[in-house]
């Protein structure tokens, strides 16, 4: 048969036979061993209690030497804008090579698969940081070489997601909330509660991220609306609390037309009236506003989840001097302000506010850069759900189970 290039009784058919045999064997074995384990158990080794950071004792750099001429960075899209990357390259001679990642988990996997010897730094969020550093892919940082770090708000100087036992593995960057977005065509006044995205009244108009961390958003909602569950931290859920959040999302599914996987998808859906209300990032809001779409955003009374990003230093960073120059540069008030206004997030440096207003009047207040301590409390920042709860008991549901539940019970 010419098209296939297959002749009768060819070697290819034999390969197919072998593969089929192998498949049948695995199918058989798989179903025979299926009685014991459900989707809920994925190993049970995911505790930090006995875990040590493998790289904790690596020596830190004492003095920034001559630059290596290049810097390989893994970043969120929009985090390496020429506005602040170009001046850095001119000042230091370090050529920035960007690798953009679409999810926290992609960042974890890039840091792992590059063997740590390919990339110098990653701008990961709090839900990925611990996984990166406990996997041994991050390196201790000498904070004395990064003077602007002292100007950071205290909450971001040594946050638990990038500092373990006083050892820093990177420098905090920026943070922001996951906001409730609504089309002003459909909502005359701003909704005050996340309940709108769980309300059957809005069937077919709701959109939320296609991401297991969304379970935390449901838990945050239940924390306020079902106090009997006793949720104190939306990322540390016992099995009954977790199940309640998953059930809430499963009940939400019929209301949803589309779980968005890309920011551009959500923008498209709001523009084309495929969705009128949903959860999103300030990035989508500012993009829609720039396109003159009547979009509104709010942080409802229950608060919101959010992210806090860190430039983590790779364990085997080949361009360590350039990496320190980058950390020193990116933490200065002016650069912090540039990124905050450009991307639409909140800077960690307390002196960035005045620079923000210089770039865009009113932007400091808009992104809450002047009132973080009160504002910060209303935001539950992403962190990796792990089996060990804060009280030390191994009762919490680890992230792998979040993924399994998202795929099998919610979607």
């Amino acid at each position, binding site marked *: 048969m010419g098209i296939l290039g297959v002749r009768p009784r060819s070697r290819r058919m034999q390969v197919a036979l072998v593969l089929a045999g192998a498949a049948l064997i695995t199918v058989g074995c798989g*179903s025979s061993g299926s009685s014991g384990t*459900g989707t809920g158990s*994925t190993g049970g080794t995911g505790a930090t209690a006995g875990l040590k950071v493998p790289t904790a004792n690596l020596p830190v750099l004492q003095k920034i030497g001559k630059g290596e001429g290049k810097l390989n960075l893994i970043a969120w899209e929009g985090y390496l804008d020429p506005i602040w990357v170009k001046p850095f390259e001119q000042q230091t001679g370090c050529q920035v090579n960007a690798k953009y990642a679409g999810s926290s988990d992609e960042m974890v996997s890039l840091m792992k698969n590059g063997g740590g010897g390919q990339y110098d730094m990653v701008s990961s969020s709090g839900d990925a940081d611990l996984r990166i550093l*406990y996997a041994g892919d991050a390196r201790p940082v000498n904070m004395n070489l990064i003077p602007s770090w002292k100007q950071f708000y205290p909450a971001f100087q040594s946050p638990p997601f990038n500092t373990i036992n006083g050892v820093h593995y990177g420098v905090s960057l920026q943070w922001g909330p996951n906001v409730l977005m609504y089309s002003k065509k459909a909502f005359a006044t701003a909704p005050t509660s996340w309940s709108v995205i769980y309300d059957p009244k809005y069937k077919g108009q709701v959109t939320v991220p296609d991401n*297991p961390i969304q379970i935390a958003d449901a838990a945050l909602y239940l924390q306020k609306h079902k106090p009997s569950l006793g949720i104190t931290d939306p990322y540390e859920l016992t099995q009954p609390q977790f199940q309640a959040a998953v059930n809430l999302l499963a009940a939400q599914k019929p209301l949803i*037309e589309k779980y968005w996987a890309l920011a551009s998808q959500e923008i498209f859906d709001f523009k084309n009236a495929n969705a009128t209300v949903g959860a999103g990032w300030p990035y989508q809001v500012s993009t829609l506003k720039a396109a003159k779409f009547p979009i509104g955003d709010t942080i409802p009374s229950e608060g919101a989840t959010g992210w806090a990003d860190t430039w983590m230093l790779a364990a085997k960073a080949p361009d360590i001097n350039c990496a320190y120059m980058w950390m020193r540069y990116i933490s200065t008030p002016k650069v912090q302000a540039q990124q905050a206004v450009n991307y639409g997030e909140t800077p960690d440096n307390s002196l960035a506010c005045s620079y923000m207003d210089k770039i865009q009047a009113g932007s400091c207040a808009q992104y809450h850069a002047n009132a973080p301590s009160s504002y910060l409390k209303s935001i539950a920042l992403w962190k990796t759900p792990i089996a060990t709860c804060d009280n030390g008991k191994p009762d919490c549901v680890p*992230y792998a189970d979040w993924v399994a539940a998202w795929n099998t019970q919610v*979607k």
Partner: protein
Amino acid sequence: MALTTATGPGRQRKRDGFGLRVSAALWRRPWARATILLTPPLAWFVLIYVAALVVLLITAFWQINPFTTNIERIWSLTNFSQIFSSAAYRGVIGRTVGMAAAVTVVDAVVAFPFAYYMARVASPRTRTALFVAILLPLWASYLAKVYSWLLIFTHGGALDWGLGKVGLSQVHLIYTNWAVFTVFCYIWLPFMIIPIYAALERIPSSQLEASQDLGARTWRTTRSVLIPLALPGIVAGSIFTFSLTLGDYITPLLVGGTSANFIGNIIYTNIGIANNVPFAAAMAMVPIGIMAVYLLCARALGALEAV
């Protein structure tokens, strides 16, 4: 320069002697000739193709540490038991196979008359034009094609606009599995038309004439002569449409809604979001197994033997 011309002829003669001896040796040993010829492509096939599959198979039996997501090389069948014990994953597999089968059947039904017209009716010029029409979309980016369907299906999009013009009410297709189905049928259609065309083109006209001379009408000739002779082409096309649908995740991701969960999407989320490569590998074995069974059935039908 002078040096080269001076030593040139002597060296040339020497190499001739060596070359002659090698070719003589190879002539005497046909197996050595075959080995040297076949080693590079075979090495490519084994290293790039088979080795990757073997690594996939092995990885499927490992686990990840749920916290650091480092791979732990402990052998077990946990991944497979998770897939087959969960109703949700079984549903995903069923939905994927059903979708692939539906797309294959519809594409075959659409492609057959089209290919017949191209191969046996159309003038050479029309045939060329049709070929261009079929092949041109293959030159456009896959993503551009899927996004253009998104614009057709969206609220107030081209479809709603067109239906409004003819006085029909709007249909709600975007973010449904019907949308996924439509886009799959559209995107994989050329892969069905071309093999069927190639098969139909080779059928000697004399056989169709003989059938008619023996009194068979159009339908009987189609059923008893044309389709059996074109079957290898149909099966070849179906292997493309079936396997391509089985593994695709981009179309469901973009035009599919909340129930657009297919095998490809499970693999994608497990690698891209959960970083659970072993589970993704186990899931990837499912379509491989299905395709192996499919190819065996095709062979049993004799579809791969003819022509």
